[in-house]
């Protein structure tokens, strides 16, 4: 029998869960835990410079490697600083375990120093949370936290640990598999085979099919199953922002991202399809456009592990609740077995012809400029120079959409971006987590000057742990996406979207111990990128001075349907009428 203190039990629990990194920041309520961390070498602690950075870094790690990210912060401000990062992970279903210190039990509720109701504050943005009331419950609570975070639809789980619990002792025994089960939590995995058969029948009878995939395919590690399914059927496939990379972005059956800044062909195909196969996607408002005009002719099959995602925004004809990978495996098996229904190849050919006509518009075409750097050109160059093989994180705004449009991700877990919550400040700390997960990989953070400064303090963390991230700052001196909306919908009244008094990013990078570069000529873009990418052991902050007036196209305005896209001014007005 082993008698351990709470803090030791906590560290032992993390070891039992094979945790390799903790992203954290010490403080009063977690000092016992930090003392135990000091005494061991198995788990590496990464000291961030702000607790938001810890949460984003753990999130980036989890997205890249597919294991839960772990955060350790103190009570009070440690927790509140983390909330944005927890909510970011929650919206994108990222598995994380966040250990938060709490004031000693007898002080809870007394407005003690650095006390906050952590369970109450995080409740709406976690999959579940716990307050540990007894040291004897610590091990089982930790095990349950990992179990809940990683099963079913993944998500962040907070474990709030009062300081006195970490000092008390009890017998330590790592709970067995069957002890972790909860009577109130039974995540479904296999899809209902009857529903799957029904769905396959509808799918095979489609004349104008469309496959719409989301982040669920990546979370379920189902990319191979998806590729098999799509290629076997020969149907067109589109993806949400969160799903990019699950199906190769450079494949001929991939028609690009859909939604507000999706491709013309993807959105037109959504509007005109007769059977929509939604796989691990949740019909987000940035994807559907106006719901009244969404896929007017389509019958819909929806595969999702979370029953609440089904028929939440859009009524569905055939719902299948289950793990995307397991359901696709069943569907692939039915396809292999064959049956009496075979797809109508001539209808499919006609459908592909229409798709090719829409694609011929070349909606992502933009006008090159010899004097001003076009942001799209920077992303395209990054794609070419990294051969599409980098891990790319982003912040939120125009630059995020340009990466989604111009960087053709062909592997899952390479595109690390805050889709649901849309958190500016995510990119740099997330890149740290990715780099730790894959120390040898090329990790680029594409950002903008507004987003980058939101978590700029993490440049110190990058130096301390030698994380050679390449920061591509598309600096247009505006909050670009805000400016774009103000141009389109507020008659060009650029209210507070201009970034005045910007730092000198080159000297800023240098003051943090990194390499800074400023690039303001289009002719220098590729050589600068090549030089920076070649510095494998240094952080390089590349400050690209880009066209201030560039907008993200195509675009579906609020209240419009997929067939009502605005193309860039470079394009003739879309010939919807003939094509529709």
């Amino acid at each position, binding site marked *: 029998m082993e008698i351990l203190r709470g803090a030791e039990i906590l560290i032992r629990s993390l070891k039992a869960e094979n945790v390799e990194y903790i992203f954290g920041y010490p403080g009063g309520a977690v000092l016992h835990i930090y003392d135990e961390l000091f005494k061991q070498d198995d788990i590496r602690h990464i000291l961030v410079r702000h607790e938001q950075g810890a949460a984003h870094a753990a999130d980036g790690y989890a997205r890249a490697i597919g294991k839960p990210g772990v955060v350790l912060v103190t009570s009070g401000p440690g927790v509140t600083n983390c909330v944005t990062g927890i909510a970011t992970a929650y919206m994108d279903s990222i598995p994380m375990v966040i250990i938060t210190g709490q004031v000693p039990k007898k002080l809870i509720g007394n407005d003690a120093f650095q006390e906050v109701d952590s369970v109450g504050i995080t*409740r709406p943005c976690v999959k*579940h949370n716990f307050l540990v009331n007894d040291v004897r419950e610590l091990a089982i609570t930790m095990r349950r936290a990992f179990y809940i975070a990683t099963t079913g639809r993944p998500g962040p789980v907070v474990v709030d640990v009062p300081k006195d619990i970490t000092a008390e002792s009890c017998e330590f025994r790592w709970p067995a598999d069957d002890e972790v089960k*909860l*009577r*109130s939590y039974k995540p479904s995995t296999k899809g209902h085979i009857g529903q799957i058969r029904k769905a396959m029948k509808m799918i095979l009878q489609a004349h104008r099919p469309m496959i719409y995939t989301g982040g669920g395919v990546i979370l379920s590690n189902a990319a191979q199953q998806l590729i098999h399914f799509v290629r076997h059927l020969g149907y067109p496939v589109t993806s949400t922002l969160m799903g990019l990379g699950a199906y190769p972005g450079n494949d001929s059956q991939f028609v690009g991202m859909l939604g507000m800044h999706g491709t013309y062909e993807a959105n037109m195909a959504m509007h005109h399809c007769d059977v929509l196969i939604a796989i691990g996607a949740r019909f987000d408002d940035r994807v559907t456009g106006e719901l009244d005009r969404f896929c007017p002719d389509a019958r819909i099959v929806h595969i999702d592990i979370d029953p*609440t995602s089904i*028929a939440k925004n859009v009524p569905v004809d055939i719902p299948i609740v289950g793990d995307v990978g397991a359901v696709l495996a069943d569907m692939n098996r039915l396809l292999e077995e064959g049956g009496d229904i075979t797809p109508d190849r001539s209808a499919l050919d006609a459908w592909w012809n229409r798709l090719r006509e829409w694609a011929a518009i070349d909606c992502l075409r933009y006008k090159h400029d010899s004097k001003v750097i076009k942001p799209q050109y920077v992303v395209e160059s990054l794609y070419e120079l990294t051969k599409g093989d980098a891990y790319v994180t982003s912040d939120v705004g125009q630059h995020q959409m340009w990466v989604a449009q111009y960087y053709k991700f062909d592997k899952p877990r390479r595109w690390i971006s805050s889709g649901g919550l849309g958190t500016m400040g995510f990119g740099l700390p997330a890149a740290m987590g990715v780099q730790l997960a894959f120390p040898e990989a090329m990790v680029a953070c594409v950002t903008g000057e507004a987003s980058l400064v939101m978590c700029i303090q993490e440049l110190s963390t990058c130096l301390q742990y030698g994380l050679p991230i390449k920061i591509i700052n598309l600096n247009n001196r505006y909050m670009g996406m805000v400016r774009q909306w103000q141009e389109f919908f507020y008659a060009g009244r650029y209210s507070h979207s201009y970034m005045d008094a910007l730092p000198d990013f080159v000297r800023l990078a240098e003051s943090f111990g990194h390499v800074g570069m400023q690039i303001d000529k289009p002719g220098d873009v590729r050589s600068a990128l090549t030089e920076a990418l070649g510095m494998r052991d240094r952080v390089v902050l590349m400050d690209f001075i880009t066209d201030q007036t560039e907008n993200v196209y195509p675009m579906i305005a609020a209240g419009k349907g997929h067939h009502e896209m605005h193309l860039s001014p470079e394009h003739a007005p879309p010939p919807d009428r003939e094509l529709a």
Partner: protein
Amino acid sequence: MRQILSLLLENHTGSLSRVAGLFSARAFNIESLTVAATEDPTISRMTLVTSGSPEVLEQIFKQLNKLIDVIKVVQLSNGPHVERELLMLKLRAESSAQRAELKNFVDIFRGRIVDVTDTTYVVELTGTTAKLDAFVEATDTHNIIEAVRTGVSGIARGDKGM
């Protein structure tokens, strides 16, 4: 559309706030909510009355099931069931004529007078929400000193438990 839901949930601190928080976060209606421990002290049973379109009611059902602390949810009002609510009213009862009339009135509704002072009665009444509403409506509001209602509790008819 009105719906009565029966929930079994873990009898933990915080379980109630997870349910209540879900309703406020997703802008679902709560008309009433009652909760107490069951014969198994680790489990609480809640009866919750909500309303919404069929699509919203389906979401409410699924979202409640998704909460980790919720063990089971039954859409009670979709099948045969019994529902009851308790009302207690403190009423002015000053003159003997008024007291007699009130006593008579309470008997008609099969209520009980459970506290008496020189000038007041406390009336206890159980029944469906509609019956309690009818009683309150029939009472001269001028005579109501205070009123308290428990919200609906419900149970399914038949031999099966939840």
